[in-house]
C-alpha cells in the first residue's frame, strides 16, 4: 500500500494523526470496498427506505394531533365560546372569555418584563467581551433548558409565598423569566449580524454608545429581534407549568383551563378543552408564521 509519505508528499503537508487513526481509516476504506457494488447499492437502497419510513413515522403524530384538535375543537368553537365566561364544573355551556383575558394579561406582564430586559442584556453581551459576558451567555443557554415547572416553583417561592396570594402578576413574572433567556440569545444572535465596522463608524462619528446602539445595532438587528421575541412569545403563551402554582383559578388562563378540563369525566368539559386547545394552537401558529414572515420580509428589504 502506497502512503502519502512514500508518494513524496512532504511531511509538513500530511496532517498529524495518530497511528490508531490511520489504522482505523484503513479499516473503513477496506470495509467500504469489501462487498460488490451491487450489494453495496442494495444496502444503500434499504437504508434510504428506512430513513424515509422514519420521516413518515415522525410526521404522523403531528398530522394526527392537528387533525384531532381541529376536528374536535371546531365543534366547540362559536362566538359565544370566546365571549362567555366559563360555567361551573359539570354545567354544560359556557365559554372561555375569562381564560382568554387572563392569558392576555399574564402574557402582557411577561412581555413587559422580558422584552426590554432581553434587549438590555443582549446589548450588554454585544458590547462587552470577557468573563462576565461569556458567563452570562452560558447561563442564558443553560437557563433556557431549565424545566418550566421549576420556574413556576421559583415564582411561587418569590411571590405567592411572600405575599400570600395567587396572582396574574406572579404568573407573568414566571413566564417572563421563562422567555428571558430565549429572547436574550435570539437578540444577541441578531445583533451579531450587524457589522462591527458599522458600530465603529458610528462611534468614530462621535455618537454616544446609546445612540449607536439605537440607530445602528438595534436598527440592523430588528428583523432578528422581532422574530426571536415573537418565537419566545409563542413558547410562553403555550406554557402551563409556570402558571400552575401562581394563578388563582384554572379559569384564568387558557392552558390551565385545558389541563383542568382534560381530566374531568364530563364530555362537555372535554369539549371545552378541545376548543381551547384549538384557539391556543391557532394563536401559536399565527405567532410563529408572523415571526417568520417578518424576518423574511425585513431581510429582503434590507438587502
Amino acid at each position, binding site marked *: 500500500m*502506497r502512503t502519502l509519505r512514500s508518494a513524496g508528499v512532504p511531511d509538513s503537508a*500530511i*496532517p498529524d494523526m495518530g497511528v490508531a487513526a*490511520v489504522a482505523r*481509516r*484503513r479499516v*473503513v*476504506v477496506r470495509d*467500504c*470496498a469489501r462487498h460488490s*457494488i451491487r450489494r*453495496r*447499492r442494495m*444496502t*444503500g437502497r434499504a*437504508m*434510504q427506505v428506512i430513513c*424515509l*419510513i422514519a*420521516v413518515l413515522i415522525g410526521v404522523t403524530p403531528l398530522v394526527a*394531533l392537528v387533525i*384531532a*384538535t381541529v376536528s374536535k375543537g371546531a365543534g366547540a368553537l362559536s362566538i359565544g365560546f370566546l365571549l362567555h365566561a366559563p360555567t361551573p364544573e359539570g354545567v354544560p355551556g359556557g365559554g372561555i372569555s375569562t381564560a382568554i383575558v387572563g392569558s392576555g394579561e399574564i402574557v402582557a406582564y411577561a412581555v413587559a418584563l422580558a422584552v426590554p*430586559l432581553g434587549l*438590555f*442584556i443582549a*446589548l*450588554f453581551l454585544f458590547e462587552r*467581551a470577557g468573563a*462576565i459576558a461569556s458567563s*452570562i451567555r452560558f447561563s*442564558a443557554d443553560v437557563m433556557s*433548558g*431549565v*424545566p418550566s*415547572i*421549576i420556574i413556576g*416553583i421559583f415564582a411561587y*417561592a418569590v411571590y405567592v409565598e411572600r405575599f400570600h396570594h395567587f396572582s396574574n402578576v406572579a404568573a407573568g413574572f414566571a413566564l417572563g423569566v421563562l422567555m428571558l433567556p430565549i429572547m436574550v440569545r435570539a437578540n444577541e444572535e441578531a445583533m451579531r449580524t450587524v457589522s462591527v465596522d458599522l458600530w*465603529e463608524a458610528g*462611534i468614530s462619528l462621535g455618537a*454616544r*454608545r*446609546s445612540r449607536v446602539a439605537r440607530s445602528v445595532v438595534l436598527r440592523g438587528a430588528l428583523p432578528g429581534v422581532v422574530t426571536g421575541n415573537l418565537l419566545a412569545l*409563542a413558547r410562553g403563551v*403555550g*406554557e*402551563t407549568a409556570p402558571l*400552575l*402554582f401562581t394563578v388563582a383559578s384554572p379559569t384564568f388562563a387558557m*392552558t390551565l383551563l*385545558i389541563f383542568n378540563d*382534560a*381530566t374531568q369525566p364530563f364530555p362537555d368539559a372535554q369539549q371545552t378543552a*378541545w376548543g381551547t*386547545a384549538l384557539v*391556543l394552537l391557532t394563536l*401559536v*401558529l399565527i405567532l*410563529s408564521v408572523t415571526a417568520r414572515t417578518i424576518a423574511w420580509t425585513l431581510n429582503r428589504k434590507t438587502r
Partner: protein
Amino acid sequence: MSDLIASLPPSPVAGSSVAGEGDDGSQALRPWRKRRRLPSSPLYAIVRWGGAGLFAALVIGLIVSIVSQSSQAFAHSGLSFLWSGTWNPDAGDYAGGTLVAGTVITTLVAMIIVVPIGLGISVSLSELIPRWLAGPLSTSIEFLAAVPSIVVGLWALLVLSPLFATDVEPALERLPVLGWFFHGPAYGPSVLLASVVLAIMTLPTVVALSRTALGGVPLADREAAMALGATHWQVVRRTVLPGARSGIAAAITLAVGRALGESIAVALVIGNRPAIPHSLLAPGATLGSAIVNQFAEASPGLGTSAVIALAGILLLLTILVNVAGQLLVRRRGGRRLLGVRGAVV
C-alpha cells in the same frame, strides 16, 4: 465575529495612543488616565449593567430559593431523599428515589424511540429528500416544537391513550422476546405512553440540531469518500455521520434535558403511581409529574418543602445535562474518520 469583538478593548478607540496624547506628564503617574472613555450616557450604562446584574440575580435567586426551600425536606430525610424510599405523604414518608427512577426510565425509553427516528429524519432531510420537499417538511417538524405541551398532553390523554389500551399495548404484549417488558394489564396511561409523548415532544430538538450538524460536514469530505468508490449510503454512514458526531451528541443531550423536565404532558398520561414500574405498561411517576400532582395538595411546611426538593433534584439533573449539551454544542466540529487528505492514497 465574536473573536473580532473580543479582540477589541471595551472601548475600541480609547486604547489608542492618540487618545492619550493630551495627558502629557501626568500619564506616568496616573496610567489609568490613558484610557479615555467613549462618550456615553450614564443612563445607558445603568441600563446595560442593570440588565446583566438583574439576570445574574435571577439565576442565583432561582437556585438559592429552590435550595433553601428544600432544605427542610433534606433535613428530615437526609441525603437518602435522593435515592431511597417511597413517596407517601399520609405516612410522612418523603423520598424521591422512585421518582428519580421513573424519570430516568421514561427519558431512556423516549430516547430509544426518538434517536433512530430523529436521525433517520435528519439524514433524509439533509441527504435524500429533494430541497423543495425538505424545506416544508422541516418547517412542519419545527412547528411540532411550537405546539404547546398541554395540547400534546390533551391529545395523548384523549386520543392516544384509548388507542394504546385497546390496540397498541395488547399487541406489544404478544411480542416474542420484548414482550417481557410489556406485561400486565393495559390501562392506557402508562410509562410507555409517557415515553412516546416525550419522544414526540423531543423529536424537533433532535432533528433540528442533528440536521445542522449533518449539513456542517464539509463537501470535500463527501467528495473524497465518493472518489474512493463509496456509494451514496456509504458516504453518509462512513463520512457524514462520523463527521457530525459531536453535533448529534449535542442534539441528543439537549433532547434528554428537555425530556427530563417535561412535566405537564407527562402528568396527564403517566398514571401517577409513585413506585418503580414493574413493566412499561404499568403506571408510574416522574419528578415533573409528581411536582404537578403533589404541589397543590402538599401540606404546608414539610410537604411543600419535599415537593420543592423534588424540583431541586430535577433542577440539578437538567443543569448537568444542559451544561454538557452546551459544551458539546460549543465544541466545533468532530474528529473525522474519512478526511480529505487521507494518509492512504
